[in-house]
């Protein structure tokens, strides 16, 4: 075994082998080593059903699947090793309107990617699958290019390719410990000797949590016994030519595909059994688990209802084996915070489908420093420390049976909650809050009136929350309200090098005077959005930086990675010591004036500035800015004072009819203001030049990503962010809606919703510059239907920002 390598991949399943293969193929060649404690595929890959399809609930996940299919089809040519690919096509059915909406979302999102996908009627479905009973179906989607592979063959083919490109694959080599050396290199200790390397990729599948633990990390991945059933030979299949399409009936939580002369039925049962709660033993390898037929009988019966032949066909083999699951069913990929050059590629529940693609994308990410597509939905940093073992255990019990459940953009499940709460959580509850969870935080989405049901119907369409959200928006526009943003990520940057360092981290100029605030995008090496923060200068050496709560780990990891080693800059996470209540609305100042010991008049406390003042008895850092476009104040405060502060504000605000306002209203209002949202408008595919924050790019200084921005500037900005008003009646855009000019698909929405203050359905999206002029008539496809849309000047609401500055 080598003692030195550039990259070491831990784990020889489909994922690990793919990552090693791509790293080598793209140029690291024999500088890549793979360590596998048993044989290739012996963790979960061996029992995978091998379905490979384009469908993924997420836009970027779909692209990973697309890449996999492309790679799998090419592998045999490159390696000479067959992968057992069959193009079978696949059908996803719906038996209720909600599911039809979900298919509509998938249809529209897939069309953004140019995929071949089409609608089927129940009759058409019946013609394509001789064994299906179509009663009750409303329709389905058909992807003709889907298929299946032999999971083992595809892994072996990638292993062969990897070896051809120089990868050293060491089987029966158990990683026992991992240490980081002084110089940042990793020392991996195995039972066959030590190996030093620059990059480590944790693709250890079932054992990924153990490998993570070796470097001090806790990752939310557990094993669940997944079951599929191979039926005995079915004469009609044996005699037929061609392959039956893969069938997914998500309403029955089953899939069915042809295997040789018969069928395989797989399922996500209601009570998924967690396997080896406290960790999978190291010596486990390719062993079937005792199947629990009682536990899956509902799914089997559902399968028989949809495919009656299953009731007349014997079980040839029931295979149950462990597969990893994360709290939301999506994997854990990418840089592992807070480490440098340590990556995860684990937590896969649909690993075969994604193996090829993720190998390609992660290898590129590792080698180039930035991902080719935005992999945030699978980024391991989307989970904070709240996503510990116990959380995961409770959460996955809810997620597993719902892997085929409806995907709704507005659904927040009750499982494994609450985790993080603001001190005023109980008051929010008393105010009848309907909560969402964001990065583990309980945060009110909206406040229905007392006596109204505290539950938002999950839907792709406008919901029962609509009128209540409208009322909250009106309240912010006419009176005054409080938005709880305690969950904001807050980082204090200080030291003699702080300003210079921050200046390099953002394209914006770091404020030059104390108490100034600057909206400061951070860009990646290509000049695309990495993140976005507001920097408040406290003094010449101290800066208070606020970033999105969900991006906390991601953003702070980025800062940490770039932090100078000489100690000239200190980074302190003050998120959990500080709350934030945002006072918004035309009466906000009146409320503040009543209880502040300081002068908060417009002259004394201007828009875009920050002051340390007393609000009631609490000494607060107050930033006069907000995300909704009204007169407002972000009041940061020591979290232990929050209830006192809350009472002070509520008491003072009583005469102005002060009310709590939720996330839905905030999101509606930010759309009206054209404020960008992280990972919607601001992601790795766009530079600020394409957006309405192009003004934050200061080309007269150096910063990370400048070259990329410059390049785009010189080449011409290829697309622009526009705001569109959509002729939508009951369903608004959500993002990933294709935008059409006539028959031509010209772009995609980044987000959308209803603007209650302007009373219009709004979509933000990127289109080529020639379509960006206000007045341009376009169409936006929502849930599979095209709707007229018109480009309008941004922002729609209060274009001169008079209200904020009043």
């Amino acid at each position, binding site marked *: 075994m080598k003692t030195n390598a550039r990259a070491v991949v831990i784990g020889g399943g489909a994922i690990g082998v793919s990552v090693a293969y791509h790293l080598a193929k793209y140029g690291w060649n024999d500088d890549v080593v793979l360590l596998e404690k048993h044989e290739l595929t012996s963790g979960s890959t061996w029992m995978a059903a091998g379905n490979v399809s384009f469908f993924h609930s997420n836009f970027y996940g779909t692209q990973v699947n697309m890449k996999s299919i492309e790679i799998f089809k090419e592998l045999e040519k490159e390696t000479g090793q067959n992968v057992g690919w069959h193009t079978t096509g696949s059908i996803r059915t719906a038996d209720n309107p909600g599911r039809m909406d979900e298919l509509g979302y998938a249809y529209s999102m897939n069309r953004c990617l140019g995929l071949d996908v089409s609608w089927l009627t129940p009759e058409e479905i019946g013609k394509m699958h001789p064994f299906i009973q179509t009663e009750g179906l409303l329709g389905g989607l058909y992807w003709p290019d889907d298929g299946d592979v032999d999971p083992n063959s595809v892994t072996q083919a990638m292993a062969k390719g990897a070896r051809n490109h120089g990868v050293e694959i060491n089987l*029966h080599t158990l990683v026992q410990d991992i240490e980081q050396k002084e110089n940042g290199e990793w020392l991996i200790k195995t039972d066959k000797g030590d190996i030093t390397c620059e990059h480590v990729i944790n693709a250890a599948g079932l054992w990924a949590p153990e490998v993570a633990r070796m470097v001090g990390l806790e990752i939310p991945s557990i094993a669940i016994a997944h079951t599929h059933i191979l*039926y*005995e030979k079915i004469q009609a299949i044996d005699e037929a030519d061609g392959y039956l399409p893969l069938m997914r009936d998500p309403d029955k939580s089953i899939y069915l595909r042809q295997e040789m002369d018969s069928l395989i039925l797989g399922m996500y049962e209601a009570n998924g059994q967690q396997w080896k709660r406290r960790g999978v033993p190291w*010596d486990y*390898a390719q*062993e*079937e*688990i*005792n*199947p629990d*037929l*009682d536990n899956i*009988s509902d799914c*089997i*019966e559902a399968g*028989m209802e949809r495919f009656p032949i*299953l*009731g*007349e*066909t*014997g*079980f*040839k083999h029931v295979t149950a084996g462990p597969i990893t699951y994360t709290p939301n069913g999506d994997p854990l990929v990418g840089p592992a915070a807070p480490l440098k050059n340590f990556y995860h590629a684990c937590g896969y529940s649909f690993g075969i489908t994604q193996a090829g693609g993720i190998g390609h994308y992660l290898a590129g990410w590792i080698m180039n420093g930035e991902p080719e597509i935005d992999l945030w939905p699978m980024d391991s940093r989307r989970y904070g420390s709240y996503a510990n073992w116990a959380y995961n255990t409770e959460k996955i019990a809810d997620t597993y049976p719902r892997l085929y459940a409806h995907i709704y953009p507005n659904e927040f499940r009750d499982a494994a909650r609450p985790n993080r709460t603001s001190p005023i959580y109980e008051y929010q509850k008393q105010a009848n809050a309907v909560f969402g969870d964001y990065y583990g935080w309980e945060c009110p989405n909206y406040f229905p009136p007392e006596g109204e049901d505290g539950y938002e119907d999950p839907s792709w369409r406008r919901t029962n929350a609509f009128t209540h959200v409208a009322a909250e928006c009106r309240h912010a526009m006419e009176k005054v309200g409080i938005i709880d943003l305690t969950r904001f990520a807050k980082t204090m940057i200080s030291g003699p090098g702080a300003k210079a360092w921050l200046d390099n981290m953002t394209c914006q100029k770091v404020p030059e005077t104390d108490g100034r605030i600057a909206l400061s995008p951070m860009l990646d090496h290509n000049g695309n959005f990495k993140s976005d923060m507001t920097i408040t200068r406290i003094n010449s050496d101290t800066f208070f930086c606020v970033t999105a709560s969900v991006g906390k780990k991601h953003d702070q990891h980025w800062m940490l990675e770039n932090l100078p080693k000489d100690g000239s800059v200190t980074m302190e996470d003050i998120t959990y010591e500080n709350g934030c209540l945002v006072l918004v609305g035309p009466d906000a100042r009146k409320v503040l004036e009543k209880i502040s010991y300081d002068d908060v008049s417009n002259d004394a406390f201007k828009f875009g500035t920050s002051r340390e003042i007393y609000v009631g008895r609490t000494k607060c850092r107050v930033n006069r800015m907000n995300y909704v476009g009204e007169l407002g104040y972000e009041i940061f405060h020591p979290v232990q004072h929050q209830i006192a502060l809350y009472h002070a504000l509520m008491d003072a605000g009583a005469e102005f009819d002060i009310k709590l306002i939720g996330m839905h209203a905030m999101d509606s209002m930010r759309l009206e203001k054209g404020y960008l949202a992280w990972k919607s408008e601001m992601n790795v595919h766009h530079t600020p030049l394409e957006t309405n924050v192009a003004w934050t790019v200061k080309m007269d200084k150096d910063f990370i990503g400048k070259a990329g921005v410059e390049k785009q500037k010189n080449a011409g900005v290829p697309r622009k962010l526009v705001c569109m008003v959509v002729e939508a009646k009951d369903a608004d855009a959500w993002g990933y809606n294709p935008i059409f000019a006539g028959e031509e698909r010209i772009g995609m929405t980044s987000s959308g919703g209803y603007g209650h203050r302007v009373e219009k359905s709004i979509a933000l999206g990127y289109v080529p510059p020639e379509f960006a002029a206000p007045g341009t008539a376009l169409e936006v496809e929502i849930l599979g239907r095209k709707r007229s849309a018109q480009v309008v000047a941004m922002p729609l609401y209060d274009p001169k920002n008079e209200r904020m500055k009043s």
Partner: protein
Amino acid sequence: MKIFVCVKHVPDTAATIKIAGDAGFEDGEIKFVVNPYDEFGVEEAVSLVEKDGGEVVIVTVGKAAAAATIRGAMAMGAHRAILVKTDGQFLDSALTAKALKAAMEQDGLGDMVFTGKGSVDTESFQTQYRLAKSLGLPVANEISALSIDGGKAVAEREIGGGDKQVVEMGLPCVIGATKGLNEPRYPKFPDIMKAKKKEIKEVALGDLGIDENSGSIAIETLETVPERSGAKMIEGSVDDQVTELVRILKEDEKVL
């Protein structure tokens, strides 16, 4: 006809056997199945009863967990079952035969007894002989063809090299079934569900007057055979390679 089928609860042949203690194995989580040879017996018995009427009774000696395996046999069409419960993992053949006999006597003797030719766990290949002897019945093992006519059974016994010995017996008799006798059916889900409702009568070994610890064969140690860890590669020209391979297979491994 009333037919008994002796079914053993054994680890799946694909399961990894992990040793526990000196002479046991970890049986908590591995997959257990109906002893594959016993399936031929179940199939034969069920087919006979389907043709001529009667009932098929499964008799199993084993730990409580064997009930799940018995359900598998009943899903193939057996009507009910008797489980003689033991505490230990292994019971020697003589005691197993005693237990089977006692259970059958308690239930009322039948017209036929089927077993598999042997079990894939302890591979002792003798319980059916001991059972037959104690019941005073004829026994034939490794049976791959069977016909029953006029109170007689004519069976074909596999004696190696593709040769078959044809034997004749009176009824009742004990038949040790093997591959070729039939194609055991794969249970359909509705049959599996029906099997859940079928009766399993549980009897403790001690209640049949058998002392579990009175066996005359004891396992002193159980050890795993190490997994292969890489081939001995045979080098040289094709001629040299093949010559060496044939020598190894004949002289070293003695498999040719």
